[in-house]
Structure formats: structure tokens, C-alpha cells
């Protein structure tokens, strides 16, 4: 007995050594490409031999972002349904494989990889937060597949493997600033959630303000999801700016606008320009707290065009008359049509063919004509400033003169030089 026990004292060292040896051996044997060497291209497994072709719909169906992203999923499904009813793409029925991103970047990366490698989808539609897009980007690049990302974002990105169908900064932030400047705003106060979009947006706003003689009286960030705005709103009030530029996200808007109304600030004396409040969010904030305030988007449910009338009708018919349509939904809906049109133009589902054919592909979308820019993989978009009215909808009060060319790196703006270098 003591003898046996004696030997056991060395078990740990031996096990560790054995493990290290096995790992080392197997790992060395398995070593592949090193830095600088050409990686063997991963073979696409997309199967286009049958009557159907699969696409992925990757949205958060659970977690904090589910609120917003389920609406995008619905819009994607609607577009696919319409396309199938009209004969499909290249004569094939489009089949959706839906996945849950669970509001977590790692899950987005994992599910994207699954859609590409296991489900062999021809393209993926979805993503909302920048974090989810950043997480998915390497997956799409490494596996050479396509993502259609339908949400306005902070720009400074142009991947071969992503089509950005939401607005970049020069199609949303800059027009919003132009509008404020036109209406005589000379000082602004910046309030945002503490993450990349508000920080990037505010960097642009600061540069713009400096170039255009607008004074920035304050710049405050709150933790995502924070509902404590007492300090900030008091600072906003005492600063007495002409307008507030709001890049808050999600529930924080509710608390912010309530506090804002409660300290007696109104849209008349200090309008708030928001870039993350769409039709869906107005209900939760309470119309009475936000009526008259401004938002900057490319699309509202109230946009007056035949394409939009048809879209809104079809959406309500599919999901219920009480549902509203919003900018990201419209962009997602549009992105499916853009993909279909590109595939038709290329005559192929292959990623390289779609990439090659993309430039100039256009679609009469609910927001107006959109055209893919082959260089940046963004689309042209019309900027619209909307006012929130008593019925909870947003109405266009200002519109850019025609669609704006995408400029994700703001190369066409002298004052923006040095904001972010190209890669």
C-alpha cells in the first residue's frame, strides 16, 4: 500500500509531460501555413445543382438586441418570399436558413461559420451591431463568402466580402449636420452610448463643427443600457446649446428623453437630433416625451413612393397591421433584392462572380433608387431628416437632393482628413 501511494506522487508530472508530448507531436504534425505564405483557398460548398439555393438569415432572436433584429429577420423573409413568388433567383427557389446571433459577437461569428461551412449558403443577410459585424468579418473573409449588412454604421470599412446596405456616415451623420447648420444651429451638445458608433460619429461631428464654425459645448457618454441621466441632462440644460446630437442606443433613449422632458426641455427650445431612434423605438419612449424631436435616416414608413406603399402593405399583410417598418428593415429588404439582382446579372451564385458583377446593380427600393458602388461595396442612399409626430411615426422634413454616393472613408471631405486612414 505505501509503495503504491509513493509512486502516485509523481503522477502529476508524468501526466503533464505525456499531455505536453502528445499535444506537441500532434500539433507539430498538424502545422499548416505560416505567416506570409499563400493560404490554400477554401473550397466553397454552395450547391446550385438543385432547384433551390440556400441563403442565411443571421439575427439576434434572443438577448438584448432581439428587439430590433427580429424585425430585420421579418423583412428578409418577406423579400425572399416575394422573390420566390416572382420565380426565384436564376430560376431557383431561395430557401432561408435562420440562425440566432443571441446578441453576442462570438455567437455571430460561430453561426456565420456554421451557415457558410455546414449549411453552404450562397449569402448571409443580417447583423446589427458593429461588434457583430466586426466579429463576422474575418469569418466571411477567411471562408470567402458574402454578408449583406443592413444597418447604418460608423463607416471606415470596406470589405470585399461584405455589402453594406445601410448608411455610412456621409449618408446620415453629415446630412444631419448639414440640416442643423442650415436651420441656424451654432452650438451643439453630444450625448452618446459608450461604444464605437457614437465615438466615431462624434469624432466626425467635432471635425465638422470645427470646419463649419459650430461650437461643441459638451460630449458625454453613458454605459450601454444605462438609465441614469440626471447629471447629463442637467449639464445639457445648463450648457444651453442650440441642439443636441444624440447617439444613444436602446433603452437609454427612454430614460434620456423622459429626463429631458421632465427638466422642461422641448423640441422648440433645444431640438434633439437622434440617429438610432426609428419607428420601433418611439412606442417605448412614449410619444409625449419625444414629439417634435428629429431623427436622421434614409427611410421612414411615411416615405411617399409607390415602391414604399407596396412594401408597407405587403409587410403589414404578412405580419399584422399594427407593425411598423423602419430604416434597417427596409435596408435588409432591399439587400435581398440587390443580391438577387446581382446574381441575375452575373448569371452565377459564385462569390467571385457576384463581386465582379456588383458595380452598378440598382434596385427601386422603398427609399428610392439604390445603386451598388463596386469599389466600396456600399450603396447610394437618400438622406432624410424626420420629425416625430403625435401618431408615433416619423415624417420627412428635409431630404437630400437625390441619392448620396457612399464615402465610407470620407475622402471627399477636406475637413475630415485624418479622421481615419484607409487600410
Amino acid at each position: 500500500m505505501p509503495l503504491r501511494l509513493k509512486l502516485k506522487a509523481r503522477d502529476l508530472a508524468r501526466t503533464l509531460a505525456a499531455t505536453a508530448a502528445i499535444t506537441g507531436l500532434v500539433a507539430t504534425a498538424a502545422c499548416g501555413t505560416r505567416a506570409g505564405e499563400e493560404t490554400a483557398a477554401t473550397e466553397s460548398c454552395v450547391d446550385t445543382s438543385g432547384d433551390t439555393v440556400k441563403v442565411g438569415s443571421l439575427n439576434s432572436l434572443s438577448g438584448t438586441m432581439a428587439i430590433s433584429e427580429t424585425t430585420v429577420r421579418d423583412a428578409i423573409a418577406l423579400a425572399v418570399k416575394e422573390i420566390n413568388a416572382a420565380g426565384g433567383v436564376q430560376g431557383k427557389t431561395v430557401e432561408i436558413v435562420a440562425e440566432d446571433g443571441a446578441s453576442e459577437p462570438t455567437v455571430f461569428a460561430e453561426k456565420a461559420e456554421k451557415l457558410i461551412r455546414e449549411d453552404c449558403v450562397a449569402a448571409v443577410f443580417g447583423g446589427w451591431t458593429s461588434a457583430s459585424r466586426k466579429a463576422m468579418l474575418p469569418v466571411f473573409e477567411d471562408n470567402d463568402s458574402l454578408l449583406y449588412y443592413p444597418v447604418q454604421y460608423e463607416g471606415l470599412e470596406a470589405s470585399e466580402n461584405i455589402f453594406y446596405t445601410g448608411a455610412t456616415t456621409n449618408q446620415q451623420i453629415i446630412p444631419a449636420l448639414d440640416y442643423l447648420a442650415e436651420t441656424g444651429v451654432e452650438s451643439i451638445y453630444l450625448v452618446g452610448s459608450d461604444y464605437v458608433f457614437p465615438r466615431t460619429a462624434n469624432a466626425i461631428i467635432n471635425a465638422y463643427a470645427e470646419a463649419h464654425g459650430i461650437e461643441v459645448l459638451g460630449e458625454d457618454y453613458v454605459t450601454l443600457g444605462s438609465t441614469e441621466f440626471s447629471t447629463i441632462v442637467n449639464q445639457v440644460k445648463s450648457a444651453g446649446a442650440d441642439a443636441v446630437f444624440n447617439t444613444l442606443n436602446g433603452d437609454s433613449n427612454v430614460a434620456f428623453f423622459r429626463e429631458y422632458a421632465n427638466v422642461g426641455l422641448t423640441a422648440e427650445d433645444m431640438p434633439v437630433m437622434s440617429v438610432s431612434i426609428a419607428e420601433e423605438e418611439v412606442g417605448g419612449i412614449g410619444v409625449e416625451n419625444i414629439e417634435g424631436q428629429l431623427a436622421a435616416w434614409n427611410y421612414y414608413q411615411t416615405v411617399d413612393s409607390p415602391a414604399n406603399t407596396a412594401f408597407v402593405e405587403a409587410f403589414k399583410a404578412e405580419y399584422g397591421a399594427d407593425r411598423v417598418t423602419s430604416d434597417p428593415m427596409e435596408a435588409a429588404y432591399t439587400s435581398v433584392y440587390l443580391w438577387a439582382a446581382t446574381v441575375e446579372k452575373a448569371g452565377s451564385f459564385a462569390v467571385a462572380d457576384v463581386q465582379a458583377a456588383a458595380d452598378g446593380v440598382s434596385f427601386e427600393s422603398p427609399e428610392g433608387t439604390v445603386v451598388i458602388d463596386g469599389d466600396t461595396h456600399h450603396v447610394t442612399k437618400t438622406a432624410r431628416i424626420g420629425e416625430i409626430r403625435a401618431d408615433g411615426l416619423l415624417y420627412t422634413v428635409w431630404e437630400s437632393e437625390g441619392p448620396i454616393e457612399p464615402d465610407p472613408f470620407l475622402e471627399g471631405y477636406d475637413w475630415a482628413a485624418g479622421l481615419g486612414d484607409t487600410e
Partner: protein
Amino acid sequence: MDLLVGQLFTGLSTGSILLLAALGLSLTYGQMGVINMAHGEFIMAGCYTAYVVQQAVGDAGASLLIALPVGFLVGGAMGLVLETLLIRRLYHRPLDTLLVTFGVGLILQQVARDVFGAPAVNVAVPEALRGGVDLLGVTVPKTRLFIMALAVVSVAAVTLVLRFTPAGRRIRAVVGNRDLAETAGISSRRVDAGTFFIGSGLAGVAGVALTLIGSTSPTTGQSYLVDAFLVVVAGGMGRIKGAVVAAVALGALQAVFETYSTASLAKVGVFLVIVVFLQLRPQGLFTLRTRSLA
């Protein structure tokens, strides 16, 4: 001057919100040593109570007055069910209780999501509470004054109940010495259930009140929970006095940090202060010193 008054007010206001959220927790934690992670979801239930009552009643002012007692009953009833079905059976296993109630919280959140939908719903602020009052050069929203008043009333009510009613005396007896109280013929089981009812009811009341300033969504409760726990930890378990002082102190601390740095760093700063504070007073601000082994 303005800044100082503003900060003072913000501190008090934040503190009163923390206090409302933490008061019930302090009671149940002190009573049974039970950490109820579903407390946040009881607050959330209070928010939705306010919403439902407002949908039914229509008038925002009347519905708020109705929702406060209804919220108390809803929260209390949920607490009673939780205590009877689960917590009672896990007595002497405080860590397990913590995890089990976390599971309950997850389920309640999902129930809210399935019943009311994931997007935030709007609970209108009564006309009488809109706008602000100018105090020493600072505009103080009426909703926050209301919440401060409600926090004071809640603390007063709890103190009065504990001190002057037979039920309250029984609760204090059990908190002081459970075994002794039992030998004196007090059914600690019924006292536990009663305490949990009151503590959870207070969460419901807090929920109703918090609709005035925050959003009402399935995840609303979570945002208050961790801060509420820190109040209880810093205040010392089961001490209403401790909860009051800790809530106001943390509120003020948060406000000061927020003014001189960012809101994000404020949270981190508050946490560090609590860890350092526990070095000095490991059992919190106020504790009963007894000879029982910890």
C-alpha cells in the same frame, strides 16, 4: 454653486432609486440570509403592473396611485410563491438559493418577453409629475422628487411596521436570533414567508415608481440588481439604517465620479470603494455583533 446643488440632488436622487430597489432586498437578505437574484425581475413585474393598470385605467395619474398598491401585491405574491416553493426548501444553502433564484429570474424575463413582447412599452407619466421645479438654480424633475418622497415613505413604513406591529416584532426577533425566537414560540416559517412578501412587495412598488424615469422592458430589472446588491453588502445585512446610508452614499459617490470622470469609470470607482470599504468594515456599515459563529 449650481454644480454643487446639482450634484447633491443627483446623489440624493440616485440614492433614493438605489434605496427603493434595495430596500426589499435588504429585508429578505437580513431575515433569511437569502440572496434573491429574482428581485430584479420582481421590480420588472412592478413596471409591467404599472403598464397594465395604465392600459386598463387610462388616466395616468389615477393609474399610478392604483398601481402602487397593486404592484406591492403583485411583487409580494410572486415573492410568496417563490419562498414557499423553492427558498424554504433550500434553507441553509444560501449559495444554491442564489443560483436557483437566478434561474427563476431568467424564466420571468422570458415570460415578460413572450407576454409583452421584447420592445420596451411606454408607461405615461402623469400630467402632475411632468416638468420640473426650480430649486436653488437647478431644475429638479418632479418625477425624481416623487421617487425621493416614495423612498422616504417606504423606509418609514418599513421601520414603523418592524418596530410597532406584532408581526414586525416577530421579524426582528427572528433576525436577532432565529433559534431563540423559535423556542419562544414564533413560527419562523411564517415569519419568513411574511418577510418575503413584504420585501418582494417593495420591489413591486419600486418597479411601479421606476417607470416614471426609466424604460419598461423585460431586462429592466437586471439593470438595478447589481447596484442594489452592492447597497445591501455595503450597508450590512438586514439593517434598514445601513441600506439607507449606503444607498445615499453610493448615489453621491456615483454622482461625484460621474461629474469628474465618465459614467463608465464611475461604476468601476464605486466598486473599488466598496472593496476598500469592506477591508475596514467586513460586515458592512451596521451590524449586530453577536457571539454566534459567523
